[in-house]
């Protein structure tokens, strides 16, 4: 077994307890602050409620878990007209539209930086990485300033003659939420797209042109298939946090009509519906488990690629 031989040869250098002891503090931290808190969520979602104070009492033994309230919640999500159903529907629509917009905006930009920026490549890279260290809240604050009734957006529209009266962008407009989400997350889309497009050798694109393909064909039959992994990775990277986003819609819309799953979870856990909140977290994770595992697998593959 190679593993054993490996550790044997290394035993000559380091005592066997040496490296495992390095993993201990971080493992302990992960157990205490990640694994155990998730167990608490399970224990509350499937736990009891104090009959007098209506506070949740977690049940830590899985044998005594009660799945009834959880099942009721799931069926409420499928009942038309319930606030749960509405929030799930909003979230799905907002996230899908914003993710597609991220690809539509991010792809040409990533393609440009990877293939055409030339000697300005470094400059463009720095500029497009800038949003990563500008706080998300500040980027939203910037748009709140611009979208005020007397802000620059309305003033520009008015001077162009597009509108007569100021538009109240920040009063529960789904358009504003979608644009906010797109603005907030598009840098996370450009990064994996750039990494993929940058790896496509330019000589291959030139070869397909030499063989008679038009530029549309080169894009459709070479560039696009070769960047499919990047698009998929980008979609997962932007969609995962968007599904849990509650601050963008609160800041840019702030009404019940634009509430997302995240808003439901928070209002529930901060009120007396803690058990509902915990269950909603579990439902959100169940919804996202496939993209999460894909992302996990991709990250692991990247690690293995480094090792090879």
């Amino acid at each position, binding site marked *: 077994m190679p593993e054993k031989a490996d*550790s044997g040869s290394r035993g000559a*250098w*380091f005592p066997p307890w*040496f*490296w*495992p002891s*390095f*993993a201990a*503090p*971080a*493992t302990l*931290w*992960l157990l205490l*602050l*990640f694994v*155990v*808190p998730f167990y608490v969520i399970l224990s*509350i979602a499937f736990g009891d409620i104090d009959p007098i104070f209506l506070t949740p009492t977690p049940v830590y033994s899985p044998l005594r878990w009660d799945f009834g309230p959880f099942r009721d919640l799931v069926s409420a999500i499928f009942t038309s007209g319930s606030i749960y159903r509405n929030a799930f529907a909003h979230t799905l629509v907002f996230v899908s539209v914003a993710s597609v917009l991220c690809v539509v*905006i991010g792809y*040409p930009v990533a393609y*440009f930086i990877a293939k*055409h*920026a030339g000697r300005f490549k470094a400059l463009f890279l720095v*500029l*497009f990485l*800038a*949003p990563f*260290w*500008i*706080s*998300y*809240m*500040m980027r*939203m*604050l910037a748009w*709140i*300033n611009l979208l005020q009734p*007397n802000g*620059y957006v309305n003033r520009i529209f008015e001077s162009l003659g597009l509108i007569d009266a100021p538009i109240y962008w920040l009063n529960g407009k789904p358009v504003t939420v979608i644009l906010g989400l797109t603005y907030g997350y*598009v*840098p996370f889309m450009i990064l994996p797209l750039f990494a993929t497009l940058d790896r496509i050798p330019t000589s291959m694109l030139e070869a397909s042109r030499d063989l*008679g393909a*038009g*530029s549309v064909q080169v894009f459709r039959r070479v560039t696009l298939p070769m960047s499919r992994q990047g698009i998929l990775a980008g979609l997962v990277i932007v969609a*995962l946090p968007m599904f849990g986003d509650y601050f963008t819609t*609160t800041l840019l819309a*702030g009404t019940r009509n634009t509430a997302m799953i*995240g808003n439901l979870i*928070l209002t529930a*856990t901060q009120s007396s519906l803690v058990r509902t*909140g*915990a269950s909603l*977290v579990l439902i*959100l*994770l169940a919804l996202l488990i496939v993209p*999460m595992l894909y992302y*996990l697998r991709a*990250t692991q593959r990247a690690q293995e690629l*480094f*090792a090879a």
Partner: protein
Amino acid sequence: MSTREKPPEPHGAAASLRVGDWLRNPWGRPRFLWVVAIAYMAWSLLPVAIAVLFSFNATRSLTSWQGFSTEWYVGNVSSVWDDPVLRGALAQSLKLATLTVAIAVPLGVTFALALDRWRGRGSGTANFVMLFSFITPEIAIGVALFLFFVQLAEGIGPGFVAQLMGLSMFMMAYPVIVVRARLLSIGKEYEEAAMDLGASPLESLRRVLLPLLAPAILASVVIVFAASIDNFVISQQLSIGANTQTVPILIYSSARRGPLPSLNALASLTLFASTLLIAIGAFAYRRHTREQRASRPA
């Protein structure tokens, strides 16, 4: 494969001459892509630039420019320096980010070393859990930590210590990923050579491996600091009132309530702080790697 006729090039009418030009010769100057990229950069950065600009406005307006002033940074009663709420949030953010770096980076670096050198049964599971914590949507982690500190760890409870613990767990993944990448490119030869020459394990670690890892550790410090100072979800979930209010939490709670330019000033200050730190980090990183390259025989 059937022989394909070369399709006629799509012709742009006079109106779309530029697009047509570009489609006919994409290896020339791709004007269309230049326009898209520059428009994107403007859309992405101008709003923030305007927000920074208005932090220097001479009046309390956030929508019309009235002249340059630094009163919202210091001087005015509601400036960042003079308003205890704003100054407190800034101090709280810096404190939380610094202490998070101090916990998350050592934990992450030792974990990366262990994962790289110890391929035992537990290491795969530990790595899996770590990566999972990294990709889980933050709201789930935030709620889980909040319920944990309310229900199980009541002795600590939500507050600054909880914020620090939660954030340092969440941020640990960055140093692990960065340092592991570096470890894989270094290999084991250097420390084994050191031990051949009589160094003890700890000595070889301290005098050979750690200096080689310095750029990766430096990069981790910068990334964790910048990410912590901007963190919102976990910090907000575990915050209780004004004493644990960081800059992003304050922006979130006051952005819609007719804020003053001092809020823009506060946001700008954290932006300046991260930019400065990243600039210093990039400079040190380049100097360090250049020295290493220079000292290594070609």
